[in-house]
């Protein structure tokens, strides 16, 4: 049973977010339920306490934006930029996610049961993203660190201008972006993948040996004139 229920059909969004910001690790109300999100933007953003927030329905842009510590579960689809710039915690989208899921996120885990569209994990800075479906084009563009794990397929230009983010794709990759290459899947990578899947609660649900690893060729790390075609 939730400690607190907010119905966005009758309560302004501002009150929900303000209440979530006031809650802390010591609060009595640790389990929250949000009804009738109806595709609203900026639902449950900026939380910085170990709360559990269950959102019953589809959300718009930037749900769980800048999340720290909280577990946020979306029982529906999420719009653009879900869990953007997340610092820590766990965000679980039960449906599909739109563009730029987990953009620039620094930490925590973003789990998407369905598909994520374009630019999933763009500029990711340490977050772990697990997508049980497929991801769209330009995913992990300029990814700096963290891991993007895709059970399905990846669209065009995966990992373009990649830094040190680690990419694992089980299905097909339509094309690799500039400076992104397939890499050998050694034991340490299998162990890493296993750890991430365990953290997502998915250990044993897929065969780790089916994944391929992709990472930066590091050819664009320092400018060289012979690489201008890649710019």
């Amino acid at each position: 049973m939730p400690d607190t229920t907010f119905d966005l059909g009758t309560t302004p969004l501002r009150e929900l977010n303000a209440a979530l910001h006031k809650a802390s690790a010591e609060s009595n109300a640790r389990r929250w339920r949000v009804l009738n999100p109806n595709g609203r933007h900026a639902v449950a953003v900026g939380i910085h306490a170990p709360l559990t927030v269950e959102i019953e329905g589809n959300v718009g842009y930037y749900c769980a934006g800048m999340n720290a510590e909280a577990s946020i579960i979306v029982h529906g689809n999420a719009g653009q930029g879900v869990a953007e710039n997340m610092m820590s915690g766990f965000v679980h989208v039960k449906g599909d996610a739109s563009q730029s899921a987990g953009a620039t996120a620094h930490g925590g885990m973003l789990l998407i049961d369905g598909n994520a569209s374009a630019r999933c994990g763009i500029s990711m800075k340490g977050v772990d993203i697990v997508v049980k479906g497929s991801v769209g084009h330009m995913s992990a563009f300029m990814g700096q660190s963290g891991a993007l794990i895709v059970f399905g397929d990846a669209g065009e230009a995966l990992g373009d201008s990649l830094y040190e983010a680690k990419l694992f794709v089980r299905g097909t990759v339509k094309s690799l972006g500039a400076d992104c290459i397939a890499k050998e899947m050694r034991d340490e990578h299998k162990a890493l993948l296993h750890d991430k899947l365990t953290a997502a609660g998915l250990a044993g649900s897929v065969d780790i040996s089916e994944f391929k690893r992709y990472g930066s060729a590091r050819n664009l790390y320092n400018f060289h004139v012979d690489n201008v075609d890649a710019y």
Partner: protein
Amino acid sequence: MTAHSNVPRTPPRFSATFDPATLAEIRRAAATGIYDIRGAGTKRKLPHFDDLLFLGASMSRYPLEGYREKCSTEVVLGTRFAKKPIHLKTPVTIAGMSFGALSAQAKEALGRGATLVGTSTTTGDGGMTAEERAQSQTLVYQYLPSRYGMNPVDLRKADAIEIVIGQGAKPGGGGMLLGQKISDRVANMRNLPKGIDQRSACRHPDWTGPDDLEIKIEELREITDWEKPIYVKVGASRPYYDVALAVKSGADVVVLDGMQGGTAATQDVFIEQVGLPILAAIRPAVKALQDLGMHRKVQLIVSGGIRSGADMAKALALGADAVAIGTAALVALGDNDPQWEEEYQKLGTTAGAYDDWHEGLDPAGITTQDPVLAARLDPVKAGRRLANFLSVMTLEAQTIARACGKSHLHNLEPEDLVSLTIEAAAMAGVPLAGTGWVPGQTGGY
């Protein structure tokens, strides 16, 4: 023999098109295969505030008595939606400059100087340092496409949030911080490997365009409980439309940066060839605010080549609410100071012309991450120098405003100005001195 030497000869003559600087650049490009990257702003001569003059009071207007009759300078920014607007004692702020581009000491000095005179300073690409937060009474936190160092803890510590869409040095461009300046601390703040070139994106990763910006602004307001003013910064290129769209997207404050604005590391071709001089950008921006009924309700901060109280007074007269300085602030801290001439010479340049800010070798210890060089800048003393300079700017602007009979800097108007050149008259929309002629005033931007 002698007869022959008496024949007049054509002296060597350089081409105006292929002048020595152009020839040198062609040779440099041929040798390296990379465009020239440098810091600082435009070096070419542009129509600027120098081309405008104030009409002091005499018979038809009455001046105010200096030092006795008050000429107020305070400004409030972010009155549209924010619960906690920014109150500044003087309408000159410090523009966004990153830790990474600048040393931690320089960032701290900027905070100290701004705080001494009651104004704000701004973070940059790379996040907020503890030093600058601690020493800045009012700190604006930049929200940039790269989101390097962006985190909600610092966001809540900030006094205002500035969403950067572009900057005057490179409207439409991203950034490039070369590997030499990616020290351990910078690398750590930006989640990057040490020593590699750091590319900054030119578009935000999770929104594109004003219709989506409106939603991004809502998110930032929700995260910060609608307390903090949201600024939107654009490089001057299509100011009428950009300012109108910033207002429609829900900005509290618009920051408009002319092409003279400095930069940490950008292609020379971008710095010199893209954007508008600030003189040409202010009137269209103000017109957009007026057309929407938002002039003075959504505040306008202009920057790019502001060097003095006179520049500030002219910008305010053209309709700005405040100005921001970057390069002038660095010079006040000690950038390009002749005391380091010997070292500038070793770097193949001279004090006043040094612009290789991206190489991290700044003898003045400002645009560097080298601990030995950075230690040369005493943040307390440098902060004091900046405060002195800001005070002089304020006094100069007050002097002019009083002479024009104004009891507040904001009461300066375009009609208090005339222009010395036809170009400036057209760009600033004020008459050529001694005439009633405003070239090109047929409406529309």
